[in-house]
């Protein structure tokens, strides 16, 4: 097991290196640089030049890359070009929020998807199935930011049930934080439920066709037992993979939701940093999310045998 994890991590190195190189070159290809952005419209050329020197932007790009990569390997992602905050700490503080929203949403979405996907497949072609499939298809067709805005409008502004801005950390105002996170979490949950439900439903249908399900019924087991013991674990394995992919994707990409709900999360940080050409932050974030992506997938592969013992990790 440990060898396996070690091996997987080793295999991830070229991937991560490519990501690092790509992002490093990409941000430098975008017109504009942090010095200009920071000094703004009326800045003198000398001021911009001196800031560029201070930020180390006038060194040769390969030298910059080597320096940055060397430091990053040592765990130092550098400081934000704009605010001077250490990038590592910045990412971690923003990621906490994103992680909470994503984990809860994906957890809820999985729960909903598994329940309804299982039931719909069990009663395939019934009215329930039709309703579940219809809802899932509908949800899949709604742009998540639009959904978020509509929810915000209805529950935040019209009904005034939930706060619309002013995220506060849990430690300060637990109730406030929870209330504030309700809408983003609901939005994200709804958005992610569609594809997961469809996946769960179709893999359940596949499993229900297999002999061992009939065999379980032939033993006289109740439908509940058949579904929970024999169908669920086998049907869940493909969904689990999808959950992993979803997590990997969302950890790096709920910028849109964060924008709608004014959450100071990682996605927003990345988008803002690209727009502000804050190279060290963009680079750090990308390296972080890519690593996270690799780790989440590794975790899924390690968890997979729990549901499908045919697959072994070593």
């Amino acid at each position, binding site marked *: 097991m440990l060898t396996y994890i070690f091996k997987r991590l080793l295999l991830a190195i070229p991937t991560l290196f490519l990501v690092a190189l790509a992002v490093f070159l990409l941000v430098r*290809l975008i017109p504009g640089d942090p010095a200009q952005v920071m000094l703004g419209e009326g800045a003198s050329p000398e001021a911009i030049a001196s800031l560029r020197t201070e930020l180390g932007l006038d060194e040769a790009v390969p030298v910059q890359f080597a320096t940055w990569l060397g430091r990053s390997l040592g765990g130092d992602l550098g400081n934000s070009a704009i605010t001077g905050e250490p990038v590592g700490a910045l990412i971690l503080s923003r990621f906490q929020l994103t992680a909470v929203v994503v984990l809860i949403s994906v957890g809820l979405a999985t729960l909903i998807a598994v329940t309804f996907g299982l039931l719909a497949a069990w009663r395939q072609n019934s009215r329930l199935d*039709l309703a579940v499939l219809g809802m899932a298809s509908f949800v899949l067709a709604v742009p998540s930011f639009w959904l978020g805005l509509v929810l915000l409008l209805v529950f935040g502004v019209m009904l005034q049930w939930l706060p619309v801005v002013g995220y506060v950390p849990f430690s300060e105002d637990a109730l406030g934080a929870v209330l504030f996170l309700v809408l983003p979490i609901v939005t994200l949950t709804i958005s992610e439920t569609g594809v997961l439900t469809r996946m769960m439903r179709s893999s359940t249908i596949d499993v229900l066709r297999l002999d061992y399900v009939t065999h379980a019924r032939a033993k006289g087991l109740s439908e509940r037992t058949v579904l929970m013991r024999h169908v669920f674990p086998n049907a869940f394995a493909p969904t689990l993979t999808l959950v992993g992919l979803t997590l990997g994707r969302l950890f790096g990409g709920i910028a849109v939701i964060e924008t709608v709900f004014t959450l100071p999360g990682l996605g927003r940080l990345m988008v803002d940093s690209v727009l502000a050409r804050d190279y060290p932050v963009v680079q750090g974030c990308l390296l972080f999310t890519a690593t996270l992506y690799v780790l989440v997938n590794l975790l899924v592969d390690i968890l997979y045998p729990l549901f499908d013992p045919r697959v072994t990790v070593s």
Partner: protein
Amino acid sequence: MRGRAHQYLGFGLVGLLLLVILTGFVWLPYDPLAIDLDNVLAPPSWAHWLGTDQFGRDVAARAMLGARISAFIALQTVALTVLAGLIVGLASGFLRGWTDRILMTFSDALLAFPGILLALSLIAVLGQSRHSIVIALSIAYLPSVVRVVRAAALSIREREYVEASRAAGDGPLYTVWRYVLPNALPPVLIIATSLFGWVVLSESALSFLGVGVPAPAPTWGNMLSSARPYMASASWLSIAPGLCIVATLLGINMLGDALRDRLDPRNAA
């Protein structure tokens, strides 16, 4: 039965989309780019079925033209992604070995890149234009197609008819062209329909973040995003493009389901 009803709805919605696009070529209620500053933010009326936007442009006309542009962008992206995905995926899945390993490393690296950020940076580099969006989204979605094609190629290359082709003395390129490619197409077709929907959604999300298709050309995405400040005061601005997106995606997804049912080997006659 249920499957049928969904299929018909899917065909119906996609047919409607095509009808709207085709109608748009010969007739639009107004010039979708013409401003009318005396008539801004007019609610829906007989003169303007879906109202007007903040510059007095007719929302219905813009939604119709937007259908064409959005669909065209999606089609271009899907075509480009599928073409590139087929080449890479087939190379990777059929040749295996080092080719596979290198291509997969690139693909993994792309996958590990948060899609929206990749698109955002690429568009910033390439300059904001339709082509940049097509290219950026194609690159962002390439790994998904590659995965599907590669998986198909890996499974097809084990089929006996591929072995039969080798036994008949066919070269590898011919085998891929004649046997692997055609049989890898069904899953690709299915993911292409999903891709179409994703692209429409992504384009709108990019517009929302301010890097969508540049104005004045309307797309549903940039209509929706520019309607955002008027969400509460002029809701018709966001309802029309929003519903267009939902209807199109619903139609496409249902069509995809129908296709999946049709192409599923278990359902084959």
